[in-house]
């Protein structure tokens, strides 16, 4: 048997999945920027992070990616998907497109994805803890309760996040994320 006669099996590019993930990363990035302006808790979490904080969230090995960071005047900004020579202080790597799909289609909660070793975090662990809290709040704003409950460990009750804050904040975050 001549092994050379067999064609090389190349991995599929998974275009549609990549496009879906890229869109989701864009939405999450824009929503983080918006939530940092709208929500007091998110604002406080970012205030505690170091001035040069820069998050890179990406799918190994070829992306897509998303960058969010603090500007010189302390504002939180979505910096796009292209690496413009950024030096991330916190990198969150999702190990494969399939792992990212499980996460972004909410088949697997963020906590479960972490415990199943589908995410690798490189950077200061306190920053990573703060980021997970921020992502949880953003998910509660972005998603309807029935889906958000799959994504976060504990969906906040009215006593923790009153309905006015949730619904008004949701409108503001959607408007800001998709307009300016």
């Amino acid at each position, binding site marked *: 048997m001549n092994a050379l006669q067999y064609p090389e099996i190349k991995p599929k590019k998974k275009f549609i999945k990549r496009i879906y993930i890229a869109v989701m990363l864009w939405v999450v990035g824009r929503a983080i920027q918006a939530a940092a302006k709208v929500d007091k808790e998110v604002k406080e979490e970012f205030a505690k992070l170091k001035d040069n904080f820069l998050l890179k969230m990406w799918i190994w090995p070829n992306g897509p990616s998303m960058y969010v960071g603090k500007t010189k005047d302390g504002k939180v900004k979505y910096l796009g998907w292209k690496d413009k020579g950024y030096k991330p202080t916190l990198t969150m790597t999702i190990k494969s497109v399939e792992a990212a799909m499980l996460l972004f289609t909410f088949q697997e909660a963020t906590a479960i994805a972490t*415990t199943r070793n589908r995410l690798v975090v490189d950077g200061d662990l306190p920053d*990573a803890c703060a980021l997970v809290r921020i992502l949880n709040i953003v998910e509660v704003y972005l998603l309807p309760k029935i889906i958000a409950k799959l994504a*976060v460990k504990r969906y906040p009750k009215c006593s923790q996040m009153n309905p006015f804050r949730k619904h008004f904040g949701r409108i503001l975050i959607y408007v800001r994320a998709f307009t300016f």
Partner: protein
Amino acid sequence: MQLPAYYEFCNSVKTIVGHKALEQIPQSLKAINAQRPMIITDKGVEQAGLIKIVQAAMQKSKLKAAAIFDSVPADSDVKVVNEVAKLYRSKKCDSIIAVGGGSVLDTAKGANILVSENAADLMQFVGYGNVKRKLRPLVAVPTTAGTGSEVTSVAVIANHEKNIKMAFGSLFLLPDIAILDSRMTKTLPPTITAFTGMDALTHAVEAYFCLAKNPLSDTTALAAIQLIAQNLVNVVKKPSDLDGRLALALASNLAGMAFSNSMVGLVHNIGHAIGGVCGVPHGICMNILLPYGLEYNMHKAAQHIGQLLYPLAGEEVYNKTPVKERPLKTVEYIRKLIQDLHDATDGKHPRFLKEVYDKTGKQMIPKEKLHDIAKTAMSDPAQFYNPEDLDYNDYIMVLEAAWEGIPLDRKKIKKG
């Protein structure tokens, strides 16, 4: 048994267990082509005469330690790691035998990185996965039955100048060989035996009910819990019980295997913070917080917590207890175990946070420190693996109950 859709498990350590297991050192070293071992230990171990036992076991085969470093402090430090590496190089050693507790084993792992990578600075290896190749042979001989460091792939080393703790994680940090010999823990005082045993129990219990549990870690966790439940109080009452000592050493090893693959949750999360803020030994924090960790997560992990009653209390009690009552009965058994240890050590084994005193009799955890502890706990990644989420107020609720020594009011626990 829960079968997750995906899990990972790794344990590549050859483990040698027995009353005279140390006698296997020469052959074991020969098998991994090591001829000039360096012994790393601390003053306490050396003064207890344990190094003489190790040397005697080696001399029977005419094997000699090329160097001995016996000054590892209680809190591993990067300066000490550098000193160890310097001695290793100057004496042309080719392997390490680490004899001690968690601090000694972590120091040995740190020094092994430096000498194997021929590096001068540990900082470049900080984090997970930054040690990328096989290190020099490392034999771990634990002298406490609690940390399970002999089968874990992590090391924590302090940098006192920068006031930080550096964590290293890599499968290459797993020792090549772990030797569990009952003579190594025989002289351990009852109080230390008690809280190190509770540390091992916490590793196993958290590995069993937290989010990264899997069938392989479940198996080792359950075996560890059974061994601890059957032997800990007896050994604290009768320290010379060598069979009991060996059973606890094995339990610690099994629990280490479980938690290094399944990680830990709330109990370690808050315990790390108390250790950082107040300097309380890790095992003492684990012992006090374990029932609270179970109570806090009961609504999310009732089934798994209920299953722990079997290895803790035995078949008869488990079968007699209705399924619904098993989780609470598990907590009751653990509280009883803590009380038994308190009684067996004439009250030296603390049950609550307010009962923790230092050697001068000063309270180590004043109530006003609880806020600092809660804030510190919010930055600890062990929270990721806890079944229920935690915010600042949740930490305070758990800490206040654990400080006073009252069970958690489970009605107050926020449920999603």
